[in-house]
């Protein structure tokens, strides 16, 4: 079996990548994808910990998180649709109604 520590390391790396992407990208869908990446990283970490500790609670969380992430994406995409309807673009830079 794979050593859980490596999985954990991978999860950390993925998290950082996702975070960097969330800060930097201007396309809203890409940002959503980065958030998913971060969630995925957290899931990985949980799974590795569950294997390490021998407790299924970690896996239960993983399943729940996947389900919630899916619904969250659905809502997110709906919001993007509404945003597109209003501002004619999904570039986050163009949406600055709350500026100052």
């Amino acid at each position: 079996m794979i050593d859980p520590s490596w999985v954990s390391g991978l999860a950390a790396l993925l998290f950082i990548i996702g975070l960097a992407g969330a800060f930097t990208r201007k396309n809203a869908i890409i940002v959503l994808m980065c958030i998913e990446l971060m969630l995925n990283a957290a899931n990985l970490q949980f799974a590795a910990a569950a294997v390490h500790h021998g407790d299924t609670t970690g896996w239960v969380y993983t399943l729940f998180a996947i389900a919630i992430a899916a619904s969250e994406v659905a809502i997110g995409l709906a919001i993007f649709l509404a945003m597109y309807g209003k501002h004619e673009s999904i570039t986050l830079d163009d949406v600055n109604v709350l500026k100052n």
Partner: protein
Amino acid sequence: MGSTGTTETIHSSVIEFAPYIVFLPMIAFPIILLFGRLFNGNKVWVSTFKEGGIFALVTMATSLLLALLLIKDYIGAYGDDSKSALHVFDWFSSAMWNGGATTTEISFGFGLYIDHITVMLLFIASFLCLLINTFAIGYMNTDPINDNRNHRFYAEFVLFCAGMLGMILADSFLWLFIFWELMGLCSYLLIGFYYERPSAAYAAKKAFLTTRVGDVFLMVGLAMLWHLFGSLDYAVVFDSDNIAAVDPASLQWALGMMFIGAVGKSAQFPLHVWLPDAMEGPTPVSALIHAATMVNAGLYLVARMFPFFGAEAMHGELVDLAFIIASIGGITAVMAASIAFVQMDLKKVLAYSTMSQLAYIFTGLGCALWLANSLDWHHDDDAHYIVIIAFGAALFHLFNHAMAKGMLFMASGAVIHEVHHAHHHLHHDDHHHTPKELYMLSDYLASKKLSTFEFFKTIDLDGSGEIDMFEFQTALKNTEVADLPPWEMGDLMKAVDLDGNGTINVPELDIVLAKIKGKTYEEHEHDHHHDDHFDAQSMENMGGLASKMPITATAMLVGSLSIMGFPLIGGFWSKEGIIANAWRVGLEDPRFFFPAACVLLGAAMTGFYMSRMWLKTFAGSPNNEVAAHVGPTNTWIKIPLFTLTFVTLGGILFAGMGFTHWAPDSGYALMSEKGLFEGIGYELGHAFANHDMFFFTLTYIAIFLGAIVGPGLALSLYGGALDEGETAKPWFTPILMLNAAIKGRYSWDNSAFATSSLSRALQNRLYFDHYYDMAMLKIVAAFSLKAAHADSKFIDGAIKTIESTSQSASTSLRKLTTGSARDYILMAAVGTLMLFALIWGVMA
């Protein structure tokens, strides 16, 4: 402190009621004000209650009665019985921290302190208040300009009396000061009684502010006194042991400050500028406040300082202050008398006379205080006598002056009143006063373009061809001109009903409306008052009134003689005393030659200007037709004049009773050493046949100057015999004959004096007002401009800076909200991470 009633063997049961002397007028003040507001315009209130005048009269009479009962008990008392204190109530008590572990209790209470000086002033104040109240009823209520606002006058009048009586009876300097301020307030209110007149408002403000300047010094003095003694109660402050423990130099300064307060209140140089302007108030105000009572407050204060000067521990230390007091008195006496030379306004002459006479009293007090401080009067009987007599002369002059000046002002008020009436009769009765409603009716007709005839037809309800009161009233109501009740239609009907048959017909209405056509009500009123430039107070509008107003003329004559110091009449006894004492002190201390000389010169000047005043008003022929039209005055005014004439004439009796000895000395009872006639004989001898050669000559010089030179000059310049067919009372005849004779033979042209620059300077009141105004403008106004500038720049600036700083801070902070979602994610992430790090750090 508010001591628990140091009531030394008082055998007076009245003293328990004595506080009511003050409380009754004080309570009457809001009552009169309230009733006046409630019943304003009510006929009964106006005619029967004289808009509160009767209330005031009853209150003052009760106060007088209580005062007389009190006086009766004290007048014969002497020794310890003659001084009493009564504790009335505790005002407040507190504790003062001494800086260590102890506190001292202090409490301020109100109590009464009664000794001979109190008794004398109590009599003066309550008696004059009552008489002037009577006069006011006759003066104020018969002048239509005062209608429906007399209640304000009487309320303020009564409050003033409360203040004066309270001040006299108070047992500590604190309460003296409180009532002093109360009188200042009432003075302001009463001088500015005709507040719609800018000159009156200005005069009131000036009076208040000038006395305020003095009051500041008085407060400082009282504070110093409190610091020295720890209390302001007379019982503590006059105690000789306490005085011995005090530093003389500081005491002199404290008393000096208090004296400045007295200078302000009694209108002495340099704070005298308010008194002539204060004549803007109605005459009863001038009589009461500025002749008889308030200006005596300053004198009372100085008189109360006597125990300090007389204390053994202070021997010789306070002479400088005494000299200052006497000098200010001397300067003012001459200055005021000289300005009085050129005054044409009757009341202003009397105002300056008041100033001058008060200065006399100050000189007298100054000399007495010097004597008390320099002579060893506690041990030497002769010295004791001299000091007491000196002090008593000043107090006696206060008494005589108050009576005489009050009477003079009342008499002048009577004259002014009658001249005003005469003017009205002559000039205003021709103009039938057209009521406002007719103007409105005329406007109505013009706006509806109705002719008088058409209008008449519409309002003639029964078609009789004539309009009676009811139809006219209805017409006015229907045209919305006025909704008058029947009893107010009378004047209106009279204005229109020209033939007086009780009904209006077309021609009458036509004539009346045509007369007012084209004019507005305001224009008409303006024409009406055009000739109100007539100055009822100027002596140019008088002359020859001796035959027309006999009682007034007599009163004024007696008063003038008393003020002049004419032998045997009232003021003579006291004035001679003051002059003699001034010179006595001058012999001992050469500095005092200055006030002594001033006082002697002043006697001559007083003689001149008082005679000038009387002669210009009452002797000679009338100056214009108004003066010729004057008639005698009404009863309310006559009563006080009558009474005071006799009081002034009775000055010799007071002198004979040993008044000068009794007033200051609590160890002496009236008529205890000599009987009345013996006393009179003694006084006559003392005056006219003095043993000491110096004083003998002095007396006669003073009489010569005061009674012969001064009046003589006046007799030769003014007055003259009455017109043909005018008869005067028998006692005037010798005077008028003398006047005619002297004027005929010795008349001389004084136009050189009259047009000189000195005369002009005097007419401008020696430019004091001018210099004070300039000083105020340059110093005070400049300073206040700078202060205002600093306020708007620095203080407002500080606030504005805070405001703008927070504004700019907020603006720059808002830049964080970029509106970009990316930045928000960043911020959220960073925040969370920091929280996590914090918790991780804490946990680890």
